[in-house]
């Protein structure tokens, strides 16, 4: 009987860990909130973003290594302030580019920028 129980427990453990992937990479709560914000804003329809479920878009550049990029949008130096500005006001940086000005709070934009800067 104990053997049966340990088998069931092992199965349960395996199942529980099947969903652990994202938990490992989640890190601090700011990063998790940034990922949740990107997920609800739909960033993944255009960009491939590590850590954001379903974010495999090919419309714009992949953000896998955006933290090590020198420039953003070919025009701004890459630092957290500029990245935050670009995320919330892409149309005032490059008017007419296809990335829309998506309404979001400054706090969200800052969290997203901070998270993206860690993608090196």
């Amino acid at each position, binding site marked *: 009987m104990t053997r049966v129980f340990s088998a069931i427990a092992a199965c349960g453990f395996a199942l529980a860990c099947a969903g652990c992937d994202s938990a490992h990479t989640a890190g601090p709560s700011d990063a998790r909130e940034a990922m949740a914000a990107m997920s*609800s*804003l*739909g*960033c*993944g*329809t*255009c960009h491939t973003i590590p850590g954001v479920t379903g974010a*495999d*878009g*090919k*419309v714009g550049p992949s953000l896998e290594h955006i933290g090590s990029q020198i420039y953003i949008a070919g025009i701004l130096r890459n630092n957290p302030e500029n990245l935050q500005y670009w995320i919330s006001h892409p*149309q005032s940086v490059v008017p*007419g*580019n*296809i*990335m*829309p*000005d*998506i*309404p979001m709070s400054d706090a969200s934009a800052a969290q997203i920028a901070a998270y993206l800067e860690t993608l090196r």
Partner: protein
Amino acid sequence: MNGFPLNYVTSEGTKAAAILPLTKGVTAISLAVILIVAALILAAIFRRRAVGGPHDLVQGTTPLHWIYIGTGVTVAILLGVLVWTMATVAAVVQPKDEPALSLDITGHQWWWEVRYLDQDHPSNIFNTANEIHIPVGKPIRINLHAADVIHSFWVPALSGKTDMIPGQVNTIWLQADRPGAYRGQCTEYCGKQHAHMGFTVIADEDQKFEAWRVAQVQGKTPQEDDPSAIADGRQAFKTHCGACHTVRGTAAGGIVGPDLTHVMSRSTIAAGTLPNAPGWFAGWIADPQHIKPGAKMPVLDISGPELHAVTTYLATLN
């Protein structure tokens, strides 16, 4: 998204409420049968012959009478369920009152065209897509059509499934008893994006529904004082999108894809696939084939500024 999950063990509508006891009853009978059969199989497995040599397990009477009992009980239950089913179907085939509203709903690969009919006032007829607004507490007549292949119309909270068959009109009715958003889904495999062919039924109080209907009837005639960004977008939309999509009141009059006259009033895009919000919308227009591979909407040969103008213009279609 609205109305998830596709829950068919609770009901929010008159028709679904009538069917629900049948669903639960038949499920209970089936479970009882499974339990009885499983118990008998287990009994047969564990029953041993007596020590001392082979002889018949059953002494005395032949076991044949069990066959008669089993068959008799089964036939009686099946007949009961048959009568119950027919009575239920008969009870829901027609609504008690004359329907308050008639709709033509057409299944397309892979979206839903919804046409609001009005026999007395043809100027009140309009098209929309993927989001069906109805007044709460009133029966609605729905004529189901199909444009290409067989689809099936299902809103589990409100009604059972009915197929949409090319060349044949199937007429159903439904009624929502409580205001709310109820998810629907195509339930007849219809090609690559069958799973992304969803819709929402939104049941509102009379006043709210009427306000929505009046707004939907209006077109979007270009105005003299439209900002240039919107005028440019309208021009780009006519050139690149107007062959398939309609914006009433403009030169864009295509009927291949959904009517976009009031697209911003809908909560989802791409037939319930994505939330209708700026980021999702821009991504969908730029690369629909990545989001719904095989969808009839192509990746457009369109410049960045033109695409941005189109999304800016669409954002005004509320």
